[in-house]
């Protein structure tokens, strides 16, 4: 924590406890934490994500009380027992299943916020890396959770993802067998996935604690990217940001409730309403929406090992970002070119997501044939994925380093306070005013 603690124990019991386990002081310091006064609503996703994690753990523990992790019983225990017979089982499972999508929606916005405002730059690299680790753990947890209902998509998703590791030279097949516990995805696989699906959220909670710790050493970044210079730049976390975060969580809950109560099946695939069958692959197998861009990158490359490496590389780029972007200016408010390339990157990721949802031999313009290049017609989902994937990687590996070096940035305000007070009127360049409108 920065600065001396302002907590003063008032009662005898508090003084007694404070000299033995200063836990009340710890909580009081967290609430009193000096936070930049100009944080906008993009900064509320930390609170929203904390809510999501707690909601998933609470509903998950309850579901585990009713779930049967066996190949013969899993499907029935979810689709019949929990969804129809357990009191409020439909509600708790609805929150848990849709909660995963809500969690990823929030984490993607949180990550995009971090990229746009340069929150990964010095001195916050470790904070960023811990966030990347949480993201990877979330994907692993979500994947294993998706397997548990043991429907067709669960089963075949498990088979495809575990086979990804089989592409690793030499040790790959051994790892796959180790994960399966058999010759194929089967009962032992389901059992261990259940065990790990229960474990990983607590690992995530531990890494979140480190993430918050790493946040509280340098303190929050802010929309200007200008460092906090004096106490007047900050406000106490409570009540200012507890209220702001609380309001954002309420809005987020409205969206959450729309899915749980009105569109409970929106994210589910009809194929997953068929019990797992090891002898039939569903005609069109796709992962959950939050993994589609990576799936499209995997499919874009006509080689097993290279495809898997590209898939891993797409995630590895996020880890490397603090060292790929060396620009001194944090916030893209003052980086007009970086901003444009960043928004195009978001579009590329969305295009990849669309491609991932299409059938592998799909076309952009149905029935139109152009010419064949590297095994595929140019008018194919494969080629659209290839173009988008090239931009995805170029953004990290070429554009970002080049921009750090060449970009002419706009003037950065002297303090994070200046644009707040002036509302753009008295700032040296029109740029800050323009940035304000965006804020």
């Amino acid at each position, binding site marked *: 924590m920065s600065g001396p603690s302002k907590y003063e124990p008032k009662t005898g019991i508090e003084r007694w406890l404070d000299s033995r386990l200063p836990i009340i002081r710890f909580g009081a310091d967290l609430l009193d934490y000096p936070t930049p006064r100009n944080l906008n609503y993009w900064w509320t996703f930390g609170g929203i994500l904390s809510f999501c994690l707690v909601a998933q753990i609470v509903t998950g523990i309850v579901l585990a009380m009713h779930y049967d992790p066996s190949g013969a019983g899993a499907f029935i225990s979810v689709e019949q027992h929990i969804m129809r017979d357990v009191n409020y089982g439909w509600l708790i499972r609805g929150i848990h299943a849709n909660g995963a999508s809500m969690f990823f929606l929030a984490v993607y916005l949180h990550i995009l916020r971090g990229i746009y405002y340069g929150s990964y730059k010095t001195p916050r690299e470790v904070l960023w890396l811990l966030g990347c680790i949480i993201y990877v753990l979330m994907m692993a947890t979500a994947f294993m959770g998706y397997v548990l209902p043991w429907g067709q998509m669960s089963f075949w998703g498990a088979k495809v993802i575990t086979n990804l590791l089989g592409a690793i030279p030499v040790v790959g097949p051994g790892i796959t067998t180790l994960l399966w516990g058999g010759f194929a995805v089967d009962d032992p696989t389901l059992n261990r996935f259940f065990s790990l699906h229960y474990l990983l959220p607590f690992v995530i909670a531990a890494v979140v604690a480190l993430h918050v710790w790493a946040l509280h050493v340098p303190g929050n970044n802010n929309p200007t990217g200008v460092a906090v210079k004096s106490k007047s730049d900050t406000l106490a976390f409570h009540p200012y940001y507890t209220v702001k975060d609380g309001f954002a969580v309420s809005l987020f809950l409205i969206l959450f409730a729309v899915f749980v109560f009105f569109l409970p099946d929106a994210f589910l695939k009809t194929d997953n309403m068929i019990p797992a069958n090891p002898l039939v692959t569903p005609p069109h197998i796709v992962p959950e929406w939050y993994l589609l861009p990576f799936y499209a990158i995997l499919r874009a490359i006509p080689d097993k090992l290279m*495809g898997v490496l590209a898939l891993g590389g797409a995630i590895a780029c996020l880890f490397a970002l603090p060292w790929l972007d060396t620009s001194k200016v944090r916030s893209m408010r003052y980086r007009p070119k970086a901003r444009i390339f960043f928004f195009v990157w978001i579009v590329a990721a969305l295009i990849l997501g669309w491609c991932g949802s299409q059938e592998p031999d799909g076309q952009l313009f149905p029935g139109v044939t152009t010419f064949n290049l590297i095994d595929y017609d140019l008018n194919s989902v494969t080629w659209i994925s290839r173009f988008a994937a090239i931009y995805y990687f170029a953004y990290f590996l070429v554009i970002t380093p080049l921009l750090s070096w060449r970009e002419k940035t706009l003037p950065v305000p002297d303090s994070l306070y200046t644009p707040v007070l002036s509302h753009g009127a008295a700032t040296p360049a029109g740029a800050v005013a323009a940035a304000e409108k965006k804020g």
Partner: protein
Amino acid sequence: MADALTHPDAAEPSRRDFINILATSATVGAAVAVAWPLIDQMNPAADTLALASIEFDLTKVALGQEVTISWRKQPVFVRHRTPAEIARAKADDNASLKDPATDASRVKPGHEEWLIVLASCTHLGCIPTFGGGEYGGWLCPCHGSVYDTAARIRKGPAPKNLYLPDYAFLSDTKVKIG
């Protein structure tokens, strides 16, 4: 040895150095010995490995038909190939193949109408569908790998031809897999 502890030359290993090395090695050895059972328990258990071979009656499969059977929980294609399929596969023996193999090497001698392969795509394990793709064989619905009528990989991300299980003909109409 008694004066080793007070040896004036620091570069000379002392009895304490020896004890440190011994203790560290013993701890690392113990850690590995404890970790191995915890890792190896995830590998297939004895009852899983004990799954026996199966016999299959080929008279159930008409000419041009294909069935998918389960062997060791893995899907296996038993395809009764038409003369046209066999001719097409043989014609491509010298084509540019990703995983070169002749049609003859994919079947048992004298039983070339029977193609018996593991039905898991060598890319990521989905079951390919017959009749898709431009080589008259299989198309994997997951990532678009295309196999020909000898189940050889022709296009897409899969690296290998569909694997051949160990099998033998017990008679003209009965085959033993495994």
